[in-house]
């Protein structure tokens, strides 16, 4: 398709505003030297451009989207309707507080519910996404040790199965990262943990269930070991969807958490977001939270109240499914994942053959070895069937990994159809391995050259002048 700049013709723009008749008084040094490149198109063309772009994407509303660790659940329309109410959209963060009490109540109520669901005592809605929430939580841990004068605690322990954002956030927050091995069940190896903790331990970062979709049965022992060494425990809420309303990070021994409203609480993801990654903590850390104006706070991590309309959508979700709906969603997420796992495991080898939580990990190392068909080839083939592929090559401890998370918002018929497609693709891979390297055949773009894109990225349009 043509880019918007290629559709552009000088003088064809849609003009709604009159010519500017205010004298320009900016000093020359403040003015741009070159004219700004803006595409010039009639509104029809603009609309068609974006509709064409939309047709080339795959979203939850197009089809099955089992992208592991991302919880691509359905985003209910009622959330959008609530977030579009003028009382939420026609406001300004600097208007008098007594004119936005309803908005304040939305934030306070959501914070209260998030505390209840996670077992924390206080929450800040400021962090704008998951990794931002991690960074914020780690700054709380840092502030806590610093205030106690315990400045030798410079290390954050992260299991080798962790999300890549964990070590990255820890490094950004100025910690050294210590990676510890997983045991043969994909869980934290207690001996490695015991050997890693000490006087320099600032904390441990963990997801539970972890990145292979398993609930760590030693969780109480793990948090006890870290606490006894003087460290704090950080819960990455990426996988909260599997346990919400059933088990609480606060009861597992965690001191600081973040949750992803755009995963667990049904608000849109990615380009359609924005996201929101509220940070929560136990009472003894509450004064460090951002956005509360408390003495001792680490300071703001984002402007005003964070991505407020995302908070409105998350609250709409919680209120519409209610106290009974929260654990029911978690139970169905786990049920759907186990259903698919059992229907596939005779041909798709599992990395860990146990009852899983909300997701499971397939290991295609043997298929790769025998046929040279990789996890990437299988994933690409799914695109031809209108399925967004599972997460690939993650976690790093499983080779040729495919990580499948169906979520609770899919019907049995959708799961059965996906199982059939997964099985057909596997059969084709065995019968005709060569053809798999050519997949997909029917998408608008076939196989982008990922290597070329990474080595020589073209990240902006090359204008002629």
């Amino acid at each position, binding site marked *: 398709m043509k880019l918007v700049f290629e559709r552009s013709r000088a003088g064809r723009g849609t003009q709604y505003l009159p010519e500017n008749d205010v004298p320009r008084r900016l000093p020359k040094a403040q003015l741009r030297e070159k004219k700004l490149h803006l595409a010039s198109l009639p509104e029809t063309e603009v609309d068609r451009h974006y509709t064409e772009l939309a047709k080339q994407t795959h979203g939850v509303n197009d089809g099955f989207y089992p992208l592991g660790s991302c919880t691509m659940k359905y985003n209910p329309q009622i959330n959008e309707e609530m977030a579009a109410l003028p009382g939420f959209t026609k406001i300004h963060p600097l208007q008098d507080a007594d004119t936005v009490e309803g908005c304040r109540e939305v934030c306070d109520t959501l914070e209260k519910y998030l505390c209840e669901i996670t077992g924390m005592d206080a929450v800040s809605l400021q962090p704008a996404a998951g990794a931002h929430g991690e960074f914020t939580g780690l700054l709380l841990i840092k502030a806590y040790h610093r205030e106690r004068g315990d400045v030798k605690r410079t290390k954050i322990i992260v299991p080798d199965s962790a999300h890549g954002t964990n070590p990255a956030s820890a490094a950004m927050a100025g910690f050294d990262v210590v990676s510890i091995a997983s045991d043969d069940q994909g869980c934290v190896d207690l001996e490695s943990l015991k050997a890693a903790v000490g006087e320099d331990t600032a904390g441990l970062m963990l997801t539970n269930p972890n990145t292979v979709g398993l609930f760590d049965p030693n969780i109480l022992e793990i948090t006890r070991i870290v606490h006894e060494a003087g460290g704090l425990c950080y819960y990455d809420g990426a996988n909260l969807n599997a346990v919400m309303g059933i088990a609480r990070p606060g009861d597992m021994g965690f001191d600081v958490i973040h949750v992803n409203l755009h995963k667990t609480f049904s608000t849109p993801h990615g380009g359609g977001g924005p996201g929101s990654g509220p940070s929560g903590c136990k009472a003894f850390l509450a004064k460090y939270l951002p956005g509360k104006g408390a003495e001792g706070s680490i300071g703001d991590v984002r402007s005003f109240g964070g991505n407020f309309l995302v908070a409105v959508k998350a609250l709409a979700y919680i209120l519409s499914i209610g106290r009974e709906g929260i654990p029911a969603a978690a139970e169905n997420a786990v049920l759907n994942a186990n259903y698919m796992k059992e229907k596939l495991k005779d041909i798709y080898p599992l990395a860990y053959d146990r009852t899983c939580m909300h997701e499971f990990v397939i290991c295609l190392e043997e298929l790769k070895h025998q046929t040279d068909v990789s996890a990437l080839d299988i994933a690409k083939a799914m695109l031809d069937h209108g399925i967004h592929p599972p997460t690939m*090559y993650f976690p790093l401890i499983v080779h040729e990994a495919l990580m499948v998370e169906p979520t609770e918002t899919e019907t049995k018929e959708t799961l059965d159809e996906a199982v059939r497609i997964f099985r057909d693709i596997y059969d084709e891979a065995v019968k005709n391995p060569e053809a798999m390297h050519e997949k997909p055949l029917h998408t608008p773009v076939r196989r982008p050259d990922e290597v070329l894109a990474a*080595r020589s990225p073209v990240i902006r349009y090359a204008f002629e002048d």
Partner: protein
Amino acid sequence: MNFPKELKYTKTHEWIRFEDDNTAYIGITDYAQDQLGDLVFANLPEEGDELTAGEAFADVESVKAVSDVLSPVSGTVSEVNEELADEPQKMNEAPYDAWFVKAAEITETEDLMTAEEYEAFIAEGR
């Protein structure tokens, strides 16, 4: 797969070529580049940085993942192959020419394998 006899190898798939007892070139093996796939970026140390045997001194990025490159020796970085930053494909095309750093003032060396031992080590892992 190619494992030149004049090189020594680590269990973490780096090669080392000693110029004399105190200086050596370090890179990643043919097996390493094959496992990692097409490499798209190399994060290199700076001249004068210290090397510690068994610890990461660089990392490489493929489309799939980022991996640490561990130093087989303790010493100092005396030269850096900046070419790899611009042309990461050299690590795939000619892994034994694509040295990362030249190490000097070597004080300590990890347990290293000969080409035959390394080849056997890889065969065993499969």
